[in-house]
């Protein structure tokens, strides 16, 4: 065995250790998020209910612009005019919840700890992916094990970037980290493949383009899907409250702390819409690659077919949001179906359906 090969083996082992360490830190983050939610439940926020039931049947004035100009005392310091923002016509006017900590100080502390741990775990995981890439001396996207570890790294990365941009997304933490742990667990147990190089059909710079964007799109679609699911819950909660119902204590406690359904809906739309052009590009890059590798750019191979189905499903979702009678919940269900298609394309097609897209070991 050559010396180079031995180093690679070492790197592969280092990568494995890093991935396991990342899982350990993610687990700690998971418990910190749980603690955030638990402590948050002490506070009794009831903004949604307040906003939806305050007017007791009287037609509510939809957020009339109250503030216009303020002159600062008698001095000549002039304040700029303020912009008054109103919810769209027809939308429920509900404020966003305060987040998992529910305004509770201790909860907030645990939330911050959870985010810090997530950052740490992410850094360790990213190092693990990098070590894997170095050990195989190519992009780490040759088999499903590598897809999975890259996938969760990107999903958490998207979450952290949104946090860094000061977007209100901390509520994503718990569901995201839970599934990241599942994803990594699956990767290290079922899908693990020893580090290895690629078969000639996978040798192409289109691999880097096509596969990296595919993984990125999947991770972002996933973040969108989490938003969509929470939207559906929050929306039914809001309509229940609005129609005078009294949801259970647990539901109230959790739902009151989430953003308003309109915000969740907008969040998932933005996320899905932002990545849809990239998904389109991914499919086209795949077609170009297939054209080079197999002599036809489109051949209805199962993987191609399911990419197409996923694409059409997301197009459906975007259309639905522009179609009268399909906005809101119906569009949200379509978004979930679309994500299910993506998942099936990833796991289902790789495992159950045989086609030209096969990898070095699953």
């Amino acid at each position: 065995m050559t010396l180079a090969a031995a180093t690679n083996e070492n790197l592969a082992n280092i990568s494995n250790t890093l991935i396991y360490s990342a899982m350990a830190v993610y687990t700690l983050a998971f418990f910190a998020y749980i603690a955030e939610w638990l402590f948050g439940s002490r506070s009794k926020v009831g903004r949604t209910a307040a906003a939806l039931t305050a007017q007791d049947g009287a037609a509510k004035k939809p957020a009339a612009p109250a503030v216009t100009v303020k002159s600062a005392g008698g001095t000549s310091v002039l304040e700029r005019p303020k912009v008054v923002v109103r919810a769209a016509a027809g939308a429920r006017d509900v404020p966003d919840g305060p987040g998992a900590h529910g305004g509770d100080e201790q909860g907030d502390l645990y939330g911050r700890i959870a985010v810090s741990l997530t950052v740490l775990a992410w850094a360790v995981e990213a190092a693990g992916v990098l070590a894997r890439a170095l050990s195989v001396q190519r992009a780490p996207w040759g088999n499903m094990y590598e897809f999975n570890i890259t996938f969760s790294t990107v999903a958490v990365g998207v979450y952290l970037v949104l946090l860094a941009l000061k977007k209100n997304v901390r509520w994503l933490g718990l569901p995201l980290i839970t599934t990241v742990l599942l994803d990594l667990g699956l990767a290290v147990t079922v899908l693990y493949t020893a580090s290895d190089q690629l078969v000639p059909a996978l040798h192409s710079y289109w691999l880097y383009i096509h596969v990296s964007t595919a993984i990125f799109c999947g991770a972002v679609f996933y973040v969108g899907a989490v938003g969509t699911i929470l939207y559906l819950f929050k929306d039914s909660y809001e309509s229940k409250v609005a129609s005078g119902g009294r949801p259970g204590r647990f539901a109230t406690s959790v739902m009151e702390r989430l953003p308003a359904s309109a915000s969740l809906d907008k969040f998932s739309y933005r996320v899905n819409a932002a990545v849809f052009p990239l998904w389109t590009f991914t499919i086209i890059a795949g077609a170009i690659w297939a054209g080079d590798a197999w002599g036809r750019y489109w051949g209805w191979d199962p993987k191609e077919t399911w990419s197409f189905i996923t694409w059409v499903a997301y197009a459906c979702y975007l259309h639905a949001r522009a179609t009268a009678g399909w906005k809101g919940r119906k569009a949200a269900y379509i978004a979930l179906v679309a994500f299910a298609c993506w998942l099936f394309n990833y796991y289902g097609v790789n495992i159950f359906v045989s086609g030209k897209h096969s990898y070095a070991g699953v």
Partner: protein
Amino acid sequence: MTTTDSGKRDDSDLDVVGSRLSTAPQEDTLNVPQLGVIGWARWFWRQLTSMRVALLLLFLLSLAAIPGSLIPQSGQDETRVADFMDRHDTLGPLYEKLGLFHVYSSVWFSAIYILLFISLIGCIVPRTWQFVGQLRGRPPGAPKRLTRMPAYATWRTEATPEQVREVALKALKRRRFRAHVAGDAVAAEKGYLREAGNLAFHLALIVMLVAFAWGQLYKSEGNKLIVEGDGFANTLTQYDDFKSGNLFTADDLNPFSFDLKNFRATYEATGPNRGTPRVFEATVDYAVGADGAEKTTRIEVNKPLEIDDSKVYLVSHGYAPVITIKDGRGKVVYEDAVPLLPLDANVTSTGAIKVMDGYRDGKGKWDQLGIQAFFLPTYGGKDSAVVSQFPALLNPRLNLTPYHGDLRVNAGLPQSVYQLDKSKLKAFRDDKGAQVRENLEIGESMTLPNGAGTITFNGVKEWAGFQVTQQPGSGWALAGAIAAILGLAGSLFIQRRRVWVRAVAGPDGVTVVEMAGLGRSESAKVPEELGALAGVIHDEAPTATDHDPDPDRDPETDPDSDSDSEPPVVTAEGAEK
């Protein structure tokens, strides 16, 4: 109910000014059409080109694509279809009848996408006209009550209304709004690229579909197996097999030729993936046209050779043992490399050698020879199974089983060159009556019984399988794809929005400035942008410092606004930039 009702109430107001922010078709309900053919036709057309039906057709398209990914398709894998037919007596014929073995060219799949594209065209054309109209016209004037808009700002200033409007017009134009003064207000709009992008995207879909269909009709695809040292010229007769689209003619083939100089394959030598291919590479000399100059190039799995519309792909490879056969008189009757077909990943190969003419047996009688060949590039030794242990030529063995008699090549039936029709053939037998078969290493010979001749295994060449495809229109498909992505990005990332700035003299002579912003969808950007604009205008027309009777009163709204639902407020900024 409370919230929805209050929402509905000002929907109409928003609808009027927001209506032309998009060219999406108006939703009309499923009105029963007026009687008469024309009434029905018009009704049908309106339904077909509505967003609702477009949505439905898109949904159907994705559903209809599913069976083709789960059921074997004849376009991809004929043998699996046959296998499926064998195993399912009732389901097989049913699937056959429903076209489920060729979903993507079936009637029902075609019907869905053709309807979808008719709907698409029927949708794009009027939308384009409408959009052109909007580009020619001017942004609509300010609605009466700007307070109803999603983003709103107001202040009082000592500048005259004319001054304010002028400042506003300039500020808006500097920010690349299309703006004009309409009555007492400035009306402005920006983000037309969104609509343009959306139209471009849908148009690009049509271009892609047409290019794809064109390619299907005119495409051709042929396969050719070439042994190292041999060559190929691109004419129909040279192909081993060939298929083409309905409108293809033989004259459409691009003229070129090439010789396979060398084929090289390397494999993982150790580790868990021992035997996995690493490199496949064919070195060829090619010439374009009837008498073009020869050039040398390499063809790899992902790197086809491109000549005009044609692409030459490397699709398979295998071994071709070089055989010399002498007949009963000692005359060489056969000397060639025989390409054999691989059976597994380690290139265990099989094939046949046929000597049809010129062979005479030990007694000098005319006869034909057929030899069954079985080849292992890496023989594992006596104790291993009789399959190759590794794909490269580490320890090659050629196993030959000769027959003689009638090869039946002239029996009128097409015959595979890789198989023997043994119905009229007799095996050679030795003195003990056992069938003759022998394992040869390179350089070894076997002698046929009764002086019937010798067979020598001289060496091994490699062969490469090439697929030559010609698919016109792929350039168009690519252009359509790029346009689609750009259009989509424009459509999804650009926000189309309107801004109005109204300035009127109040009863006390002080000018009241009101600004409002409206986006096609709710977005945080609209109030932010409005705030920035307000800042700029405010710098030129600052707040009147004197009397300010009731800062919380707005001239347009009723006094009974709820204090408990205070709307979010964004501070204006940006003027300092």
